[in-house]
């Protein structure tokens, strides 16, 4: 039975449009820019097979052919069209990004919720484990695990997700702790509601927006991590991602040949998407609760990627 039906507790319900978060977002330049870029990229990813000028595996010329009117960004080290590869690359990059973020969210979110909700020794134990994970340098760990499990897309996603869950866990835990102390939770508990129901019906909705915001940031980190992994030769060679494009070019001596068109576009694409996602994610976090000092700014846990600098921070 829902708490509402019980008539005792009324969780605030409002129309999404009037939700304070959404209102704040609509006014934020960052959110709009971030959202717009993301939409364009997703659109390209979905429509790639139809809008790409050439096939993903279609050899159209010589290795490292320079840009021409037929091929605006020239050809890569296999004789494939760069523009098409860039478009197809959005698919893999986004898939890796979103999937890895999902894995990180599931693990981190669960850990955070359990730690925050139950507190006490469970909390301490989980946080110890989290802290150990944070201290271990992530890139060497990724290298080793990729070497062990082999290079496939599935493994890359798992690796990134498993290594990045820690920041989510901490953030979620903090939020859950504060939610747990709220009045209506206490009252519901007194009435005998089970922990599971409390978590699902009351804690989760409160934490969900934060999870969303952190997910967005996580996608940015994941896309970034994927390029690092691909560069070290650990990416899936059959999955054309932007990271793989950079690595292929580098490994086949694009620098010496001077084939900048094989290297520059993927890097810029990654940066644009990561910036957009970062802006969107931090804008959501700001809109959620301006007082919530979720300190992304530098001085906490720095891993392969620090939390990115936020333009609006510390004003």
């Amino acid at each position, binding site marked *: 039975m829902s708490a509402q039906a019980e008539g005792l507790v009324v969780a605030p319900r409002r129309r999404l449009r009037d939700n304070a978060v959404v209102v704040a977002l609509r006014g934020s330049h960052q959110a709009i820019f971030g959202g717009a870029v993301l939409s364009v990229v997703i659109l390209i990813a979905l429509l790639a097979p139809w809008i790409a000028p050439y096939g993903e595996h279609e050899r159209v010329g010589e290795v490292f052919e320079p840009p021409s009117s037929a091929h605006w960004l020239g050809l890569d080290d296999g004789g494939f069209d760069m523009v098409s590869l860039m478009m197809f690359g959005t698919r893999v990059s986004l898939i890796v990004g979103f999937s890895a973020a999902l894995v990180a969210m599931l693990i981190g979110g669960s850990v955070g919720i359990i730690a925050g909700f139950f507190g006490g020794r469970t909390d301490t134990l989980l946080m110890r484990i989290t*802290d*150990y994970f944070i*201290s*271990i*340098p*992530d*890139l*060497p*760990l990724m*290298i*080793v*695990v990729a*070497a*062990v499990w082999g290079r496939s897309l599935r493994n890359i996603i798992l690796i990134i997700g498993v290594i990045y869950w820690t920041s989510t866990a901490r953030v979620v835990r903090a939020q859950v702790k504060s939610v747990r102390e709220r009045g209506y939770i206490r009252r519901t508990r007194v009435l005998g509601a089970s922990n599971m129901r409390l978590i699902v019906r009351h804690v989760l909705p409160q934490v969900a927006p934060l999870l969303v915001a952190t997910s967005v940031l996580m996608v*940015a980190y994941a896309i*970034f991590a994927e*390029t*690092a992994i691909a*560069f*070290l030769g650990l990416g899936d060679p059959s999955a054309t991602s932007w*990271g793989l494009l*950079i690595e292929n070019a*580098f490994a086949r001596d694009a*620098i010496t040949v*001077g084939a*900048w068109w094989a*290297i*520059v576009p*993927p*890097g*810029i694409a*990654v*940066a*644009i998407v*990561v*910036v957009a996602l*970062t*802006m969107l994610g931090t804008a959501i976090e700001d809109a959620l609760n301006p007082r919530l000092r979720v300190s992304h*700014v*530098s*001085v906490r*846990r*720095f*891993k*392969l990627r*620090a939390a*990115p*600098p*936020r*333009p609006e*921070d*510390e*004003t």
Partner: protein
Amino acid sequence: MRSTEYVVRRIAFAFATIFVAATLNFVIFRAAPGDATTAMRCLSCTDEVRAQLRQELGLDKSKFQQYVIYLKDLAHGDLGRSFQNRQPVLPQLWQPLKNTLPMLLLGTFFSILFGLITGVVAAWRRGTLPERLSVWTGLAFFSLPTQWLGIMLILYLADPLGLPTNGISDPYLSFSNPSLWAEFTDRLSHMVLPSLTLGLVLFGEYTLITRSALLETFGEDYVLTARAKGLTTWQVVRTHAFRNSLLPITTLIFISLGFITAGSILIEAVFNYPGIGLLTYQSVFQKDYPMLQGAFLVITASVVIANLIADLLYIKLDPRIVE
């Protein structure tokens, strides 16, 4: 929890983490299928040789036995011998570490420099386009793939500036009997591009700190008082703003050192810079477990220690952190 208690706990935790990491090292690396003797394909690599090698390297023992030996050696400060050249691991780690650290320091210097410049611009021109640009360039550089940024520098900066793009020094310099100065400039020139890459990636954080420190100062009453006393704005800014930002920047430096010892893998791979990152990367594929475990331990230890120092400094910055 009082401050001292926190400090003690924090230090104990750091040690525990290093130990756990050392164990994890062992477990993860040896979980990989095959070992250093598996894929040897050469005329002298007969079956007998491989079997014998396996025995010499202790790879024929059970994983648990290997773990026990590993811990015992570790307790004696012995990191074992490299599978590649049979020489002790620890001395072979020092040089790469000594190579990486100056590069990191120079990189941090660059990031502070760029951060200062952009931070000052941002604070001075508050609310206008230059401010946004200053702050967002930090974010933009941060979001570019690190290795890509290094490659860009090689492609477009190396030739114009006449900078080398590979290694740590000119190997044939010693033939011309160089002066100390010549050797120094040679080392420095090899360090510039890798450090510059690092600096560009990380300066965004410093921008924000500088900017906020300056803004804080501008809003303070004592500025008015000081000016009334005859000091220029610049003098006030210099004393107070910089003092405000001192601690955050120092804390950030330590965190950065911890981070980039690990993150240097990408930069060192691009520039072929013989540091601890490159060593780690290469040891993985050679399945040189002792070397890899040693490198990993060093990296983990530096991350942990750097974070420890940063945390302890951070208490000074914000005592409320002590829960």
